C-alpha cells in the first residue's frame, strides 16, 4: 500500500466505508418497505405496489431518517478512530471562501443540470420527472422537507461519501482516481433505491436506471471539485444545500411544472 500524504489522517479501514454505504442503502430500503408493509397490514392499500407508490410521495421527508442514521454511523466511526467531525470537512475555510466556492460549485454544476434535463426529456418527454411528480405531502411535512431535510442531507451525505468513504478507499487502493470513480458510482447507485416505484406489478427499473444516470454527472462534478478546492467540503455542502433546498422549496410551492 502506497502512502497517501494528502489523505486526511482520520481515514482508517475500508470496513467503515462499507458500513456507512451499507447503512444508507439499508435505511432507504428498510424505511420504504416497513411503511409500505404497515400500510398493507392496516388495510390502507390493497397491494404492496400501491403501498410503495404511496410511500414514495414522502421520500423527501423520510430521507431525514436515512441522514440521521448516517450521522449516527459517522459519529460512531469518529469516536472509534479518535477523530472529529470538523476534520472531515477539510482545511479551514473562511466564510467568504465558502460563499465564493459555493457560487463556483453552482456554476460548475450547470452542465450536469443540462444533461439531467435532456435525459428527463428523452425518457419522460414533457412530463415532470417521477421523483418530483410523486411528492404529495401535507403542509407541515413540506415545511420539514424544505427547512430540515436539505440541511441534514448536507451534514450527512457529502460528508459520508467524500469525507469518510473516499479517503478510506484512496488509502486502500493507492489510486485517487480509482477511489473517486468507485465513490461516484456507489453514490449514484444509492439513488436507485429511493424512491422505489412500482409500475404494474414490478419495480420500475427504468426509473431506477434513470435516477442513476441523472445524478451521475452531478456527483462526478462535485467529487472532482472536492479535489479542485483542496479537499474543502464546505463550499460543496453549501452549494448542494442551495440546490436541494431550492428544489424542495419549488416542489412545496408548486413551482415545478
Amino acid at each position: 500500500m502506497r502512502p497517501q500524504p494528502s489523505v486526511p489522517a482520520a481515514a482508517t479501514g475500508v470496513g467503515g466505508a462499507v458500513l456507512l454505504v451499507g447503512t444508507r442503502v439499508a435505511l432507504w430500503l428498510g424505511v420504504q418497505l416497513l411503511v409500505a408493509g404497515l400500510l398493507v397490514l392496516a388495510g390502507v392499500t390493497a397491494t404492496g405496489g400501491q403501498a410503495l407508490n404511496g410511500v414514495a410521495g414522502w421520500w423527501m421527508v423520510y430521507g431525514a431518517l436515512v441522514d440521521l442514521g448516517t450521522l449516527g454511523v459517522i459519529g460512531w466511526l469518529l469516536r472509534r478512530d479518535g477523530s472529529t467531525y470538523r476534520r472531515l470537512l477539510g482545511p479551514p475555510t473562511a466564510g467568504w471562501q465558502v460563499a465564493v466556492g459555493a457560487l463556483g460549485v453552482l456554476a460548475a454544476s450547470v452542465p450536469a443540470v443540462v444533461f439531467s434535463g435532456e435525459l428527463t426529456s428523452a425518457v419522460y418527454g414533457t412530463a415532470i420527472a417521477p421523483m418530483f411528480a410523486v411528492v404529495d405531502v401535507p403542509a407541515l411535512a413540506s415545511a420539514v422537507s424544505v427547512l430540515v431535510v436539505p440541511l441534514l442531507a448536507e451534514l450527512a451525505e457529502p460528508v459520508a461519501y467524500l469525507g469518510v468513504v473516499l479517503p478510506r478507499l484512496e488509502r486502500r487502493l493507492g489510486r485517487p482516481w480509482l477511489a473517486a470513480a468507485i465513490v461516484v458510482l456507489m453514490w449514484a447507485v444509492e439513488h436507485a433505491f429511493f424512491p422505489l416505484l412500482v409500475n404494474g406489478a414490478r419495480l420500475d427499473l427504468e426509473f431506477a436506471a434513470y435516477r442513476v444516470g441523472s445524478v451521475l454527472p452531478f456527483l462526478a462534478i462535485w467529487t472532482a471539485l472536492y479535489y479542485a478546492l483542496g479537499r474543502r467540503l464546505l463550499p460543496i455542502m453549501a452549494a448542494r444545500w442551495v440546490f436541494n433546498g431550492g428544489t424542495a422549496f419549488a416542489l412545496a410551492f408548486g413551482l415545478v411544472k
Partner: protein
Amino acid sequence: MHRRTLYRLTYLAAAMSLGHHLDHVIRHNAVGWPLTGQVNAFTVSLVVYPVIATSLMLYRAGRVGPGFWALVSGGGAVFVSAVHFGPAAVEPPEMILGGYGPSVLGWLAFAWLVTFVAVLAITSLYETRLWSQQRQGRHATRPATGVGTGR
C-alpha cells in the same frame, strides 16, 4: 505538483475541445469558416488553440500565473455554455442529440460536450484556488513597511 496538474488539466481541456470540434465536423451542422463560407460561433471558437498555445508559452516563461489561466478556462466555460446551453443558444443540445443517425452517437457527443464544459469549469475553480493561495502567500511573506513611520 500544482504546476504539473495545471498543465495536465490544460492538455485535457484542449483535447476535449478538439474532440468537440471533430464532432461538429462529423455532424456538419453549426459549422462555419473554414468548412463553409460563413463566419459564426464555430469560427470564433477556433481561436482557442492559438490562445492556449500562447498562454502555455507565457506561463512557461513566468509571465502569467494561475489567475490568468482561471480567466482563460472560465471564459471558455462561459462561451461554450452560452453557445450550447444558454437561453439564446445557437447550437442547443437537440442539434447534437439529433445530429447523428444512431441516437447513441448523439448521446455520446452530448456527454462529451457536458464533460468538456465541466472540465473547463472545474479547471477554472482549481486555478482560482491556486491564484488565491499564491496571493495569500505573497501577502504573508511581504515585509511590513510603513509601520510607525508617521510623517
